[in-house]
């Protein structure tokens, strides 16, 4: 593969820059829904792409027929020429060479499909047996071993091998028209061992779903909300991380003003970091889809904006340094500026102390879904409790937190000491590319004055 990449990127003339990628992947999956094994098996994929820069404009081709790479490279060049010029240029980086591998402790490829199926079946049977209230369950397992081959006209020629694996557990409890969902998901680059021994999590998922049946719908209003580490991570990712992706702001003068480095966004103890170098986390990688090494980037430090995430192009255009955040989910797509492992740094407040200091509020745990348009966000917690006089009281349901990103960041007034990162089988979506493996996390955090949607009082 590296050979055809080298031949292509050295052969193509009349361009300012050319890069080629080939992705080869194979993986297995097991998918239980209810009592049925819906899907079990193994798939393979292979494809490539070429991206060409001519006079500041990009042409891009992706294809499955990798042997035809030179022909597609010429097509990409012709497409770039069609644009007739643009502003794109690339910040310099040393050409990446060599072979990187993030080895899993227990390699999923060494486990038989039958054993993977048996583990999923055991979890599924366990969840189904625990309560007659459980309407349906699902256990999804997947692993993927991928090799990325990369080369460009600056002399880069490199490859990296990454193995992802994970499982998600889901239980749906039902009482008449009242249907409640609870889930658990784990997925990262550590290896197959993370899939083993999840019986306790199965029990917890069932217990949570059943208990949610008797939860009260939340009353709409403005609340002090304590977010658990998972939801805090979602907030760091959705509500701030996306704003830090430089492709969103680099050609927009007004946004550049809003996102001026040094500007205060939060209190002194709020720091948000993106770090693709963390060992074996879901969003980790040796180098990105432009051959730039992964790194740790502070976005917020002590409440002030100190950095942002870059591709080589956005770094050049904003006069900043590349951060190794140009990622494509596969050979089909061009790289976009994306996050990796994004989290709020921990401080010294324990959860117990934070709770005790909260006279009246909501404790929101886990994440069902959410969206942001950069300014506004909206996400729902999987579980929630009412807090009164510093104690957890009745369970609540239908808790959806919404608001303005800038106001809400400033309203974070307590940051816990219990950082956790969450990967899982899902991922991040942007520009039609989803899911991208990422992790996010944080400690418990407390936010004042959050709009919670729900029934009117």
């Amino acid at each position, binding site marked *: 593969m590296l050979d055809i990449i080298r031949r292509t990127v050295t052969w193509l003339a009349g361009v300012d820059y050319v890069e080629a990628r080939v992705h080869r992947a194979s993986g297995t999956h097991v998918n239980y829904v209810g009592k049925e094994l819906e899907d079990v098996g193994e798939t393979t994929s292979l494809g490539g792409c070429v991206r060409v820069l001519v006079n500041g404009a990009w042409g891009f081709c992706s294809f499955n027929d990798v042997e035809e790479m030179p022909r597609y490279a010429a097509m990409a060049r012709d*497409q770039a020429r069609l644009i007739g010029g643009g502003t794109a240029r690339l910040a310099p980086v040393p050409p990446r060479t060599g072979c990187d591998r993030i080895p899993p402790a227990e390699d999923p490829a060494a486990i038989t499909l039958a054993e993977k199926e048996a583990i999923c079946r055991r979890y599924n049977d366990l969840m189904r047996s625990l309560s007659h209230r459980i309407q349906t369950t699902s256990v999804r397992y997947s692993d993927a071993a991928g090799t990325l081959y990369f080369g460009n006209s600056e002399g880069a020629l490199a490859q990296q091998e990454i193995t992802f694996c994970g499982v998600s557990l889901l239980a749906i409890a039902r009482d008449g028209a009242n249907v409640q969902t609870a889930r658990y998901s784990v997925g990262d680059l550590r290896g197959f061992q993370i899939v083993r021994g999840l019986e306790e999590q199965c029990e917890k998922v069932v217990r949570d779903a059943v208990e949610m049946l008797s939860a009260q719908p939340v009353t709409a209003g403005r609340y002090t909300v304590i977010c658990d580490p998972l939801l805090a991570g979602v907030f760091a990712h959705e509500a701030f991380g996306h704003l830090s992706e430089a492709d969103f702001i680099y050609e927009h003068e007004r946004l550049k003003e809003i996102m001026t480095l040094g500007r205060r966004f939060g209190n002194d103890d709020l720091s948000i970091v993106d770090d693709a170098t963390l060992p074996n986390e879901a969003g980790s990688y040796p180098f990105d889809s432009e051959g730039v090494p992964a790194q740790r980037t502070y976005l917020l430090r002590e409440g002030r904006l100190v950095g942002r995430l870059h591709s080589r192009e956005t770094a050049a255009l904003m006069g900043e340094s590349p951060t190794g955040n140009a990622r494509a989910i596969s050979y089909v797509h061009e790289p976009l500026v994306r996050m990796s492992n994004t989290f709020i740094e921990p401080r010294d407040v324990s959860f117990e102390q934070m709770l005790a200091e909260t006279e009246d509020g909501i404790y929101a745990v886990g994440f069902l879904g959410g969206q*942001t348009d950069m300014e506004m966000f909206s996400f729902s917690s999987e579980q929630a409790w009412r807090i009164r006089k510093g104690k957890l009281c009745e369970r609540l349901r239908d808790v959806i937190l*919404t608001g303005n990103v800038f106001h809400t960041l400033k309203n974070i007034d307590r940051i816990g000491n219990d950082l956790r990162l969450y990967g899982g089988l899902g991922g991040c979506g942007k520009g039609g590319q989803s899911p991208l493996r990422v992790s996010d996390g944080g400690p418990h955090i407390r936010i004042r004055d959050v*709009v919670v949607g729900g029934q009117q009082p």
Partner: protein
Amino acid sequence: MTVSARDLATRLLDKAARRADAAEVIVQQSEQRSVRFQDNALKSVTTRALRGVGLRVIRQGRIGFSSTNDPAAFDTLIEQALHSASLGQEAKFEFPRNSDAPEVRLHDPAVTGLAMERAIAIMRQGIDGVLAAYPDAHCSGGISRSLGVTILCNSSGLFHEEESTSYDMGLSAFLVRGESFLWIDEEVGSCRLDEDIARLARMVVQKARLSEREVHPTAEKMPVVFTPRALDVLLATLEANVNGKTVQKGASVLAERLGERVLDERVTILDDPLVDFASGSYAVDAEGLPARTKPLFEKGVLRTFIYDLQTAGMCGVQPTANAQRGYSSQPHPGPGNIRLLPGQVPYREIISGISRGLIVDQLLGAGQSNVLQGAFAVNVELGFLVEKGEIVGRVKDTMLAGNAFDAFNNIRAISAETEWHGDTELPYVCFESLSVAGRGT
């Protein structure tokens, strides 16, 4: 390319059928070309030439599946499918034979004839149209056009080859006012060429004008008009509950209610895969059954669930030709085009009859509530406050919450006009009273 895809499919089927009791091959091949603008400038021109193969087998009564797009892996593909069948689900169906397919037009030669130079000119015209009204707007969007070939064949003798085009054109504007963001995006998508970007530009400008003043509702209940594109959020609940898969798993809240009136009697919703050039149309479904149009809800009465072969077999009912799939996955039930039939009242008249209410057009955070149960709670990304029959401004920091079933049983009016958005044709629907929560006082 078509010839080789056909050869590939039949050769793989022959080989696989010798090893399994029954086999089915799907080959999907497409060439997509697109131009993409970002921040008012042409950013990239792209080609995607992709092909993939899925193989489903039945051996000893069990289903196996595998897929690849690596030509070197075709032999392994058969081994992987058979291995999958050794663990797989019991098959509750047989692969269908050839049958007469209904006529539906999915191919427009003008789409593949569109030169990229022309696509660039169309987009420039649209962006210029927005910039003429709002010079500080940042417009993005693009045009993509593709030609796809799907070949489906099985060991019962079915062979179906379908060539279809698809065309998507999108134009969005992003405006910043103080620290207030305004996103407006408009798009069209179908199998047919549509060069009328001026219409999209006019809609963007019109919505930007209506957004110039910001207003803040308090926490109150009011009538809310969903535009055709916003209505998707509520229809998601109905679609999920009529999906045979949801029914088979016992998760549908409508499971026991076939033949009962569950929605307002003005609501008739069709699953219609036979609309010429609509993006959800098909002549035969992804398992080879001839498509047909059917009411899901007729005058509020639940009429049918939708099934693929396996799900229908498990439920002991007839399949409804609703199998959908990409080459890399097994089929699952899904609708073709969803059409909510129009009502009697002109849209203008609905608005002029509202003393205080909302119009919602773009909603943020859909699908995160309990969709099956009908709960929704969304942030209004783009919506307008109506007072005394007139739009008075854009609402900000506003949540909208309720239950889709309650809403569809509490309808004030359904508009006489409908709009196509991708695979839906929907009217404007005014719901009587929904919870709105804003920061206003």
